[in-house]
């Protein structure tokens, strides 16, 4: 090692800022569960000072805070919520704590009309992420106070009030002032027919736009293309008639496109023209679920997407033609394939995909079942495995077992498996099989379905699995899991 250098030489110092303990403390806190973080606060004064702000980084205020003494009650309206607030003040932070810490909140999820919100809002000027269910006037104030920092905005109508919608027109000019805004998601929103220009101006700075269960009487108006928009989600949203150019035509750098529209079919013809003009080169994730696209159109689309790695086409006619294109030209790149309720995707198609697509991390097709163990075993990148029903009953009940000695052992190659969904398979797994699971699938985080028909046995099995695999979550059905994820 050379010990001398020349002091006169002009040197460039990468950064002379002091070490950022605060940023490191925050990063570190993201690896801890809440209760461990709370324990850390009590370790010493310096730990408290470093980590208390981290506790407030992400703040959630939803209406149904569980009460430790009252039994769980369904939502009864705002008044009952207010009652609950005054009866159990310790479920909310103290005013002193808010004074000290609310300014650290960078991510806020809240349900509007909660009285507690008013105490919080004046302190919030560092927000990067804001998710609001049930629009109230506080939203405008928050947009103004956080105009330079807000990156992500999610607005939702109240799901318990049918027809509760957000009239986005109230806030367009606030959104225009939010210089850092890049991600917008609107649920149950209405955009009226004279705000297209402002809508367009907002879209120009966005990288991601999601319009869900919403009604747009006018599309975002723009002469220029949206040069930053790489994610576009249109789910069950009503868009005006087809004489205006479809939204995707304004998005030349689209990487992720979801079209799940209830009203009006995706103009496949226009989409194919768009792709044929080479505009789909950046597209890597495509979700056309529920669009009832036919097999040959899917085949054409896949062929025109050189960067495709993730494809969801549930409830479509994905079949032999699309399968052939996938294994011919996309087999080395396709990582996610979700084909639920595709009557045209049968066991033969599944077999072909399993043999050809070695990079698959997520493969969900009900037809994939315990008969395909040997083929599944080569998909060493698989993170999500869904096993469907066994329909070929000639093979007998043995295939209903998910046992090490009857095929499960072949899946010891799936070292990265995170999600196992055997809801449809309804297997019987004995203790030795569970022991195999905890030894082999160390990354397993989620189990959907029951591993034993007897419910007591199932509960004991889940307990055992959870004790051996830290962080494992178990759900009886996929629906239960979706609800749990939505509540987070």
């Amino acid at each position, binding site marked *: *090692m*050379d*010990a*001398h*250098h020349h002091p006169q*030489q*002009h*040197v*460039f*110092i*990468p*950064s*002379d800022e002091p*070490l*950022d*303990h605060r*940023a*490191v403390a925050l*990063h*570190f806190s*993201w*690896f*801890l*569960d*809440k*209760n*461990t973080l*709370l*324990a*850390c*606060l*009590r*370790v*010493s*004064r310096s*730990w*408290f000072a470093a980590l208390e702000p981290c*506790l407030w*980084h*992400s703040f959630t205020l939803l209406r149904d805070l*569980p009460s*430790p003494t009252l039994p769980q009650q369904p939502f009864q309206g705002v008044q009952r919520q207010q009652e609950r607030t005054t009866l159990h003040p*310790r*479920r*909310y*932070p*103290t005013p002193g*704590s808010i004074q000290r810490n609310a300014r650290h909140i*960078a*991510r806020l999820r809240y349900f509007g009309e909660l009285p507690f919100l008013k105490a919080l809002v004046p302190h919030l000027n560092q927000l*990067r*992420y804001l998710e609001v269910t049930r629009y109230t006037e506080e939203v405008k104030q928050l947009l103004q106070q956080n105009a330079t920092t807000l*990156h*992500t905005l999610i607005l939702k109508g109240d799901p318990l009030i049918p027809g509760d919608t957000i009239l986005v027109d109230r806030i367009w000019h606030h959104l225009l002032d939010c210089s850092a805004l890049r*991600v917008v998601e609107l649920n149950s929103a209405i955009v009226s027919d004279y705000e297209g220009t402002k809508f367009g101006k907002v879209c120009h700075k966005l*990288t991601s736009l999601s319009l869900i269960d919403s009604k747009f009487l006018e599309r975002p108006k723009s002469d220029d293309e949206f040069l930053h928009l790489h994610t576009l989600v249109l789910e069950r949203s009503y868009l005006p008639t087809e004489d205006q150019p479809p939204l995707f035509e304004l998005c030349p750098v689209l990487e992720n496109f979801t079209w799940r529209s209830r009203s009006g079919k995706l103009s496949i013809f226009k989409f194919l023209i768009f792709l044929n003009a080479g505009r789909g080169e950046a597209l890597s994730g495509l979700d056309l679920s529920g669009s009832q696209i036919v097999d040959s159109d899917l085949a054409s689309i896949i062929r025109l997407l050189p960067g495709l790695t993730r494809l969801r086409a549930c409830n479509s006619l994905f079949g032999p033609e699309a399968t052939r294109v996938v294994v011919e030209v996309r087999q080395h790149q396709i990582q996610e394939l979700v084909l639920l309720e595709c009557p045209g995707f049968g066991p033969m198609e599944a077999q072909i995909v399993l043999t050809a697509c070695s990079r698959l991390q997520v493969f969900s097709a009900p037809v994939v079942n315990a008969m395909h163990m040997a083929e599944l075993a080569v998909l060493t990148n698989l993170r999500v495995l869904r096993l469907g029903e066994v329909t070929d009953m000639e093979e007998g009940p043995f295939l209903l077992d998910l046992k090490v000695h009857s095929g499960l052992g072949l899946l010891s190659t799936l070292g990265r498996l995170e999600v196992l969904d055997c809801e449809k398979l309804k297997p019987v797994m004995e203790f030795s099989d569970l022991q195999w699971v905890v030894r082999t699938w160390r*990354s397993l*985080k989620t189990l959907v379905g029951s591993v034993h028909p007897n419910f007591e046995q199932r509960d004991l099995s889940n307990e055992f699995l959870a004790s051996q695999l*830290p*962080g494992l979550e178990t759900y009886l059905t996929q629906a239960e899991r979706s609800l749990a994820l939505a509540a987070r």
Partner: protein
Amino acid sequence: MTVILVSSDNQDFKVDKEVAERSILIKNMLEDVGESDSPIPLPNVTAAVLTKVIEYCEHHRNDPVQVPEETDDPRKRSNDIEEWDMKFMQVDHEIILAANYLDIKPLLDVGCKTVANIIKGKTPEEIRKAFNIVNDFTPEEEAQIKKENEWAEDR
């Protein structure tokens, strides 16, 4: 091509450019400055820590570069630490601080995950024992912190 990194205690380290560029801080600087033989001073990193950081970067020189995430606060998992990394990380908070300063996210993650794994599920007293920390709270103060933050508990 090599670069020379200089620790805060004036020790020079000759490192391949490819290895040094695992630090995004250094990578960006080299892009701005262009071809230059000037040594790069790192006033916040001692020789002892820099040795370990360079060792980590050498081992991981062929790893794919991590794409920066647009949104923060992703869900983090604590389980998937490479075996080599586990042996490498003797819990040294200075390495974690250096990794943050030099913008080497994978090393920052490994360091944080290692410490997180040690303290997961522990009581404050058990954490103090693990790191030899003196408790400078009175029992009343500790109880007050617990009470004041009950709202945050996972039930």
